[in-house]
């Protein structure tokens, strides 16, 4: 029994460590995906892509040159008044 126990213990630990490793790996991947999604969302907000999407949803229209012109008319009024810092 003791031997079995002694013999089984490392195997069990190895499995747990393997699970822990795969769990940690999944966490890292998920953290990277989360970080990328935040970076991507930030860039889309800074570059007004999100604002354009919201405009399309608000107006219930699809993206087109005409829609983008309308968006720019609306957005640029505010954008042009926005100061840029020194």
């Amino acid at each position: 029994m003791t031997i079995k126990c002694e013999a089984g213990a490392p195997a069990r630990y190895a499995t747990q460590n393997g699970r822990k490793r795969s769990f940690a790996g999944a966490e890292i991947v998920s953290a990277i995906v989360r970080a990328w999604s935040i970076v991507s969302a930030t860039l889309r907000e800074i570059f007004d892509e999100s604002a354009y999407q919201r405009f399309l949803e608000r107006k219930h229209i699809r993206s087109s040159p005409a829609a983008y012109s309308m968006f720019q008319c609306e957005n640029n009024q505010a954008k042009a008044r926005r100061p840029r810092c020194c």
Partner: protein
Amino acid sequence: MPKLLRIILWIAVSLLGALALATIALHRGEQINALWLVVAAVCTYAVGYRFYSGFIAAKILALDPLRATPAERLDNGRDFVPTNKWVVFGHHFAAIAGPGPLVGPVLAAQFGYLPGTLWIIAGAVLGGCVQDFVILLFSIRRDGKSLTEIAKSEIGPIGGVIAYIAVISIIVILLGATALIVVNALKSSPWGTFTIAMTIPIAVLMGFYLRRIRPGKVLESSLLGFILVIAAIFGGQWVSQQPSWAAAFTLTAPTLAVLIIGYGFAASSLPVWLLLAPRDYLSTFVKLGTIALLAVGIIAFRPSLHMPPLTRFADGTGPVFAGTMFPFAFITIACGAISGFHSLISSGTTPKLIRRETEARFVGYGGMLAESMVGIMAMISACVLQPGIYFAVNSPAGVVGQSPEAAAATISSWGFPVTAAQMATLAHAVGEQTLFNRTGGAPAFAVGMAQIFSNTLGGQAVMALWYHFAIMFEALFILTVIDAGTRVGRFMLQDALSHIWKPLGRTSWYPSILFTSALIVAAWGNFLWQGVKDPLGGINSLWPLFGICNQLLAIVALCVATTIIVKMSRASDGVANTGNVIASSAPKRRLSYVFVTLTPLCWLVAVTFTASWHKVLDPNPRIGFLAHANQLARTTANPRLIFNDRLDAAVTSLLVVMVTMILIESAAVCGRIITGTKAAVIRESPYVATRLPLEEPA
């Protein structure tokens, strides 16, 4: 994390920061590694954010996660949009980071690396971050109102008018000073001039691409624009090597000034989608990428600083700009330590995006810490240069002499050895004809940045490409500041003129557009022309003037913040609501907590008023505007130069008088509230509980 471990961790961070600060402050004789500056800054910022901003958030502002923000209450999918805090942080950082934190530290490096570095770190943690944070929160609690509106409602009508005049003055002087930086960076540089000239058709092409080919794909078009700009840098190298092309793009400072003035006028009058918007996107794309690249370069290369901690020029005899370390180091570095201009951003777009009050700390305080780090990187870029080279690049011919040999001899006589041959080799390495007298900070920053990059990627063979990449990067976003600033100034002017004649306020009426654009361009163009014609290089007078204006605006912002904090300490529950006028529902705060805004306010009053006194009345003609005008009047100088000096003196005096008025009005309001002769009424929006779930995915 267990509490004990947390305590040990923060003690370790504090000790490491203290060690790094002691090292940079006390190290003498040998060169110091730039990483000490980075460690000192990062540790101080971490401690400042964790403890100081935590104290302000909890004890003074009493941030309430359950109180709905205007982004939630007024959500219209356009101006008011509840947004993830990281996204708002990026947006806010992109709006506050401009050429200021890059140029100011480079100029202030003439005192050595120590004064500027300490001011950037301490100024940010105790002043700049506090200002940005509290103004952001106060704007959130007032439906995203602007600084001028808050000043008007919390201090009085004079406060609002003065804030308005301060804003328009700072915009005009900022545009003149930054345009001069571009002129000095591009004069006699066919490579740089070609590259920057190409950014205009590239931006127009991006505008058409966005509007006609791929509507709304801004990131895609910015990437395309970036690739074209890189191609333009290589094209610039080819142009500089072809005699006929090089001659066409080798322009003098006055010619460049006229072109930039014309550009500003055109950019302000043309449709936004054609030039301003795509250039803004391109500039932001390059800015964020380059700042990240510079951080990686400094960490990877770990350069040594060749500049001593303190130079002899702390006595006020500096060639880059005249004036003693106090107060001039503290107005030369505004953005990066404390910048009044940030209060406009903190009370502009950002408060309309914040999803939860508690996130104001991360965005306001944290965003300024990130900008301060950019200032540290700029300081490192300037100080990795040999001091002789730094002074040769940044000193005007009027101070060091016209010929390379004379300039090298003058600079070497100060104890910073440099030779004409050494400068010629460096100029050749970066693809320029000469690097002498390239005042303004941008060329020195570009040489430092090229040195860091070329030691990290590509070696000396590509130093010229890195130099011109850095020049392109700076000039690109300075020109963006110019076209956006001219347009903002034009709108402000139209708003003001509409009180005189209504049609002038119509923003789509072309006669009004052309008239007000011409007025704004003439205003900053005058300062630019003055700088170009100034034998002392222009930066000597314009940058301190800009610094004074910027810090005076910070005084206005801190006055507003201090008045509100005093009111919060005296407001009692149960005051009747009158429209949107309510008493703060939060518990009373101690009056002594007012020190968080009062301390930086007092410091800035001391700094800016002393600097203004020197700039107007100092008997040294290199410092005092009036002394310089009198000196010119005794010779047969151009009367225009004399007029310019007197104009600078008048502008400085006028701003100081106005800010004094707001200080007095603010002090009077606070005094009446403290003595109980005036009710402490806080004009916040009514409290509404949030409907957003408390825990949201990041």
